[in-house]
């Protein structure tokens, strides 16, 4: 499944204006309708004029969209997302989370034991809605099944399903369970020991009682490539072993290819502990954010990729999803830069067999225009690299 230099994405894609308005029950304006038409044409979305007609109808009537219309628009958004990645040339595709609110909120909203508390800043002007865990965690109902059924039916290429990982769900939540209460007057050592135990209990509770049953449901529908996202993986360096333990608790004994995604971290912190994550077949990791934009191969030319040796040397010899697009900048990486990043990794790994090519992270903070150009160039860069390798 993870073939050499296979291209895939990481997860999110910005939601089109027409999808956002529809979700809010608001009619679209002419600009939204034009965007739906032009992207439908450009991406080759089958029957996209049906969406345009629907949007036009709601614009003319000015009435709020019905629940059925909102669901229909959301499904169109997934079709657009799939074609977005497919027409850009990626080998494995997804819809860019068009069915989900956001990777954390979607999971927390479908779990028991979580209560939303409000927005908190992630960076710059980006916020996310943060919940508190207030009691035992469980799964209300599998929350990626409808999405997967739709994508499987519509996709013209293999589909990967991103699933938010247990450590990240815990780290991005407040813990208001009684077990996590602290008295600052107590000696620090005792407080810390109890906090560690409470954290471990929470992460494993989420792994076993929320994420794993959701994975089992997806496998029952035929999903075979699942990325368990752990962007919070290095938040507390001392807890990397816990993240690894939770990952394996999610996937142990299940029959699929499980990968993980890590980003925007001091990756050195993961080693050597991450080697304990024996159920993980591929690490997809963001590197371009730390790299130079000059061309060249070798450590001096590719400062953002110095760490990849440590992924190469992991005992289980996992694959590496090499992040080659900086998703926080509008800079469009030229194919030659993508090529050199790949060739550098091939040199370090001694061949392309364990390498796949991905953006650093989900592309939702970029416009579709920027994201699309980046992906098209990523695929072109892979072709240049293959040419250079004689593959």
């Amino acid at each position, binding site marked *: 499944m993870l073939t050499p230099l296979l291209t895939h994405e990481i997860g999110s894609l910005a939601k089109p204006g027409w999808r956002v308005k529809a979700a809010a029950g608001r009619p679209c304006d002419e600009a939204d309708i034009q965007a739906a038409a032009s992207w439908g044409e450009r991406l080759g979305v089958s029957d996209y004029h049906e969406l345009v007609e629907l949007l036009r109808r709601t614009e003319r009537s000015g009435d709020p969209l019905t629940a059925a219309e909102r669901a229909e628009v959301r499904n169109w958004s997934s079709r657009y997302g799939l074609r977005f990645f497919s027409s850009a040339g990626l080998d494995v595709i997804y819809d860019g989370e068009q069915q989900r609110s956001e990777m954390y909120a979607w999971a927390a909203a479908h779990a028991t034991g979580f209560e939303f508390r409000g*927005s*908190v800043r992630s960076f710059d002007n980006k916020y996310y809605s943060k919940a508190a865990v207030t009691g035992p965690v469980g799964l209300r109902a599998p929350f990626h099944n409808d999405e997967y059924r739709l994508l499987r039916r519509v996709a013209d290429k293999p589909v990967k399903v991103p699933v938010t990982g247990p450590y990240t769900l815990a780290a991005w939540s*407040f813990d208001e369970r009684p077990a996590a209460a602290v008295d600052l007057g107590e000696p620090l050592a005792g407080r810390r020991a109890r906090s560690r135990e409470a954290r471990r209990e929470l992460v494993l509770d989420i792994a076993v009682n929320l994420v794993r049953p959701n994975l089992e449901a997806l496998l029952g529908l035929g999903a075979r490539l699942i990325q368990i996202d752990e962007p919070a993986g290095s*938040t507390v360096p001392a807890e990397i072993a816990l993240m690894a333990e939770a990952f394996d608790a999610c996937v142990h004994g299940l029959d699929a290819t499980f990968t993980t995604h890590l980003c925007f971290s001091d990756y050195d912190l993961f080693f050597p502990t991450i080697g304990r994550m024996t159920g993980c077949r591929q690490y997809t990791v963001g590197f371009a954010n730390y790299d130079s934009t000059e061309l060249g191969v070798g450590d001096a030319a590719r400062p953002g990729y110095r760490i990849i040796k440590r992924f190469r040397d992991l005992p289980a010899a996992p694959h590496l999803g090499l992040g080659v697009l900086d998703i926080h900048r509008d800079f469009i990486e030229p194919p030659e830069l993508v090529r050199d990043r790949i060739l550098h990794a091939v040199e370090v790994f001694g061949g392309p067999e364990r390498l796949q090519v991905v953006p650093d992270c989900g592309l939702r903070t970029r416009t579709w225009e920027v994201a699309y150009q980046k992906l098209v160039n990523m695929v072109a860069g892979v072709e240049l690299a293959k040419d250079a390798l004689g593959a």
Partner: protein
Amino acid sequence: MTEIACYVHGSFPRSEELVAATRDADRGRRPASAVAAQRDLDRAGFLALQAEAGLDYQSSGWLSWADLFRPLIEACPGLATGPLTRWFDTNTFFRAPIAAGPLELDRAAFAARLAGDLGPAGTGGNQLGLLPGPYTFSRLAEPDTDRDALMPRLARELLRPAAEELRDAGATLLHLQEPALVTRPVGMDSWRHLDAALRLITDDLGVRVVVHGYYGDAGPLVTRLRELPVDAVGVDLTETDVDSLRGPWPVGLLAGCLDGRSSRLESAAATVALARRILEIAQPPVLFLSSGGDLELLPRTVAEQKVRVLGAAARQLREELGC
């Protein structure tokens, strides 16, 4: 007798309305003026809250700051924004400053930024100033020289001029955030350079200066911290054993007794008990009550409740002490 005071340091969370306005403006759905108008409302609300809670120093909440370094980066042509980097053990990120040229502060640009942050009338009363401390700045920046040598440069060319601008804008207390001081190893030379850098910032500045190490255990460093040339040193009691603060304290002490990373609300009574214990064992000339890390990592409604607890705890403590 120990002076008791309290304030909220760092950035304060934005309201849901400001988050929505900012998001809409980013996507072209609302004009920038809508964000500015909502920010004014947020600031006014925060000032009113601090006044109602009885806080001794008023913060604007620094609601336009993208992170602790950005206002300085934007007012210093020699600094550039670097990669998105995790802010200590949190799920918040900042852009690392890259020292790519002279560190001279464009004072007019910084002053204009402060005017926007503080509003037309300033915060009124005792106003709080905020800057990154030289040690943390030097450790998180990508320097064009060695990190220890960067500290006095930062202090002289950037932080002192910025501190003067804050003072001129009305600040009577300058809070220097120094999380790296208690979360990363500090070598002997680094302490010497930090001392020199702090003197460059504080000498004849004319406002109180507090250096605050948080997110880490200050206990093993207490002897060193007490010798810093500042008016008070802050610790984070969520990470520090209160008994490790045993005195004598020739400088003031800021007790970070609210957990800025937890939505669980502290009780005023427990906070007072903690403060009483500190007074017993440390007897500092001034005890500031505040939070460990910024309250910014909380939803605004939760942070507001913590501000009320802080004010109530300080009031109760003063009543008990008769001051």
